[in-house]
């Protein structure tokens, strides 16, 4: 078994009086698609925002390749090779595709010490990525706000690819997509894992999860209640883990 790329230990997150996450332990391995499942409000988005450097954890620690890290900002997480596609996508609707893909880490050349954008290079790179994704966008200069849901998802994925990330996190990437676009995104998650990238996928669609995931982790009320290899579980068991009907979850929730 390969060594984990990222280890989360005892992660907790409190928003004032509300405990959104408690005691989460998780290992994320390269080349593996890990699916994060759970009801609304289970804490999935909060957990990945901690991995992405968007929230500091209230407790616990993160290790990348065995070394403890503390992210002060999404930029820090990106520098450690973590790319996140947030549920709300975090794209700037008023900017073009290339501008969005490179936002926050633009290609630039220095003239008299002033950084100027290398716009042609950025555009070229993005055209290549879009082609690789098989995404057809008629006007790459149009603002992202004028694109369809699937096209925006493609832009967000380009952003992650462009980072050459070691870990790509996708929060419900297929929720707003049509069937054909969903297929493309799922194929892409497999391709990313095939390249040796670690992938964390959040989804509400259990059949979709079984299609692509190697490992399934279930969150419930801010806690990790189960972890299974996809090959060793089934649809019904996963549903009962999510709803809390599974005996393991009941036993766990009785002790808390």
């Amino acid at each position, binding site marked *: 078994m390969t060594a984990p790329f990222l280890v989360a230990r005892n992660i907790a997150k409190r928003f004032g009086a509300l405990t959104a996450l408690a005691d989460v332990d998780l290992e994320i391995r390269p080349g593996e698609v890990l699916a994060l499942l759970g009801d609304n409000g289970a804490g999935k988005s909060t957990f990945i925002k901690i991995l*992405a450097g*968007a929230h500091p954890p209230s407790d616990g620690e993160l290790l990348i390749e065995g070394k403890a890290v503390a992210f002060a*900002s*999404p*930029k820090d997480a*990106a520098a450690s090779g973590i790319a996140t596609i*947030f549920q*709300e996508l*975090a*794209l*700037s*609707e*008023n*900017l*073009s595709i*290339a*501008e969005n893909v490179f*936002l*926050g*880490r*633009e290609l*630039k050349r220095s003239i008299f010490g*002033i*950084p*100027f*954008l290398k*716009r042609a290079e950025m555009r070229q790179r993005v055209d290549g990525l879009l082609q690789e994704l098989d995404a057809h966008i008629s*006007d790459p*200069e*149009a*603002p*992202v*706000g*004028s694109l369809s849901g699937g096209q925006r998802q493609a832009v967000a994925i380009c952003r992650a690819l462009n980072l050459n990330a070691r870990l790509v996190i996708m929060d419900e990437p297929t929720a707003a997509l049509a069937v054909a676009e969903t297929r493309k995104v799922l194929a892409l998650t497999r391709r990313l894992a095939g390249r040796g990238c670690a992938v964390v996928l959040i989804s509400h669609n259990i059949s979709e999860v079984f299609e692509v995931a190697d490992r399934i982790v279930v969150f419930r009320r801010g806690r990790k209640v189960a972890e299974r290899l996809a090959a060793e579980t089934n649809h019904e068991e996963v549903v009962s883990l999510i709803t809390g009907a599974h005996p393991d979850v009941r036993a766990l929730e009785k002790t808390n």
Partner: protein
Amino acid sequence: MSAVRQSGSGVFSMNGREWSLLVACLLAIAIFSVASPHYATPGNAVTVLRNSVELLLIGLGMTLLLAMGGIDVSIGIVMGLAAIAIGRIVGADGSPFVALVAGPLVGALLGCVTAAVVVLGRVPAIVGTLGLLGVYRTAVFALLGGQWLSGLPSSLTDLLATTVLGIPVPALVIAVAYLTVWLALRRTPYGLHLLAIGNSEEKARLSGIPVIKVRFLTFVISGVLTGIAATFYVATYRNVEMSIGSTSALDAIAAVILGGTSILGGRCSLLGTVLGVLLLRILQNGLLLIGVPSLWQPVVTGVLVIGVLGFEAVSNRLPLTRFQRARA
């Protein structure tokens, strides 16, 4: 769709809004020329341009602020404070070159103060700058002691009334300021970050943009431009009156909004701001010449702002063009 695209556009390429403004300027000139025999003279044209200098500089900064989702209603009084510093230096027969440095320097310092309150202190820009407006008003009163700074020597005036390669210094300074701001906005990461913040501060943060740094810097840039405006103010009028800059914020915000910059942030037009300033000054000058008392000028400006925003709201322009950026 062509107005949406901007990346390939040049410094002076124009969109629909900008053409409309140009037509409005020409129309106003035509009407005033018929209405008043004193209007269409070279002397009056120079007056209108002369009157536009300070507002053009302040307007460039205000464009950046609004594009970022910010605002500064204290900008006129910031010009006042900078003008007092310049006036004191000129009045004490100090070197006009020292006076030249004083304006941008005081502007930058006050920009830092504004940024400290609004950006570091997380006070909403409209409230924070309104508070500073109150503080600075009193500071101006205290510094001037209830009296105008008047009858200043002409050293600074003489220095700025010269031409370089046949171009008047004010025109040159404005050209350089416009080009610099345009490059910063459209050709550097800073401009991209500013527009992303104007679209959504939270998304900008998630994208790894140094939001606080960009916002801070923008208030400082606006302060510097305002300090330069103060320099031209003192050079032109050779006095600093108690009411200095009292209409500058309204005028600047009006011109910027007329120019097509979104009050919600994320979209702006520098060329629109320039045309907005000219339209405003043409109207104010023309109305004066046909006998409308100057008391009515803020009324005209206010009605224009409300009219433009009302029209945009009614024609659903706001939600639609939130995603669109006009060319600078």
